[in-house]
């Protein structure tokens, strides 16, 4: 299941969905708003999406992950709008009978999401300026 939401992400619900008796391992990834990038201080982030396309691309990623790994559950949630410091902008949960699959699927999903899903981040810096982030392809998404 995938979703875009304006609200804080409910990680408890994601874990509950993933903790099924057929699974032996759950991996939850959260991308959170980091305060410092090098020396620049961020006070919050905001996110915008091409919503219908982002949903379609997230569904494609979920289906591809389920084809590639034997996942019991797989959910991706991306938050839009303002995201305060230390809160999650994205959550990915994967559960599987054996742990290698849940780890690999989680890692693959966040890497792909950062490459292909039409969502953009706007930095709000402590000095009052803001900046849309459009990474050049090869330096994209180190977080």
């Amino acid at each position: 299941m995938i979703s875009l939401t304006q609200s804080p992400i409910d990680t408890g619900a994601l874990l509950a969905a993933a903790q099924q008796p057929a699974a032996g391992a759950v991996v939850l990834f959260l991308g959170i708003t980091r305060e410092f990038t090098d020396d620049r201080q961020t006070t919050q982030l905001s996110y915008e999406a091409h919503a219908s396309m982002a949903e379609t691309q997230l569904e494609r990623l979920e289906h591809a992950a389920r084809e590639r790994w034997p996942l019991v559950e797989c959910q991706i949630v991306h938050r839009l709008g303002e995201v305060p410091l230390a809160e999650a902008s994205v959550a990915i949960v994967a559960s599987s009978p054996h742990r290698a699959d849940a780890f690999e699927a989680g890692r693959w999903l966040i890497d792909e999401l950062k490459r292909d899903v039409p969502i953009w981040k706007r930095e709000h810096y402590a000095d009052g300026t803001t900046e849309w982030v459009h990474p050049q392809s090869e330096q994209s998404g180190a977080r």
Partner: protein
Amino acid sequence: MQVTIQLFAGAREAAGADNIAVDIDDDSNYADLAEAVTAACPALAPLVAAGRFAAGDQYVDKSAAVNPAADIALIPPVSGG
């Protein structure tokens, strides 16, 4: 034909508008569309060069023919996650 392109994030900010309309030949591909958008709004040049186009909810190749019936969007480099 006239084609309207949705703009997002830094592209919307650079153009000062949610979308931009350009006139292109009927047999244009997305590389032609990129040129037309850049000519119409030079401030978009960097994000057109670095980004991709989408038609509907899918990315399209630069060599594909532009379908004026589709919802066309300029997708500058993404930064979700």
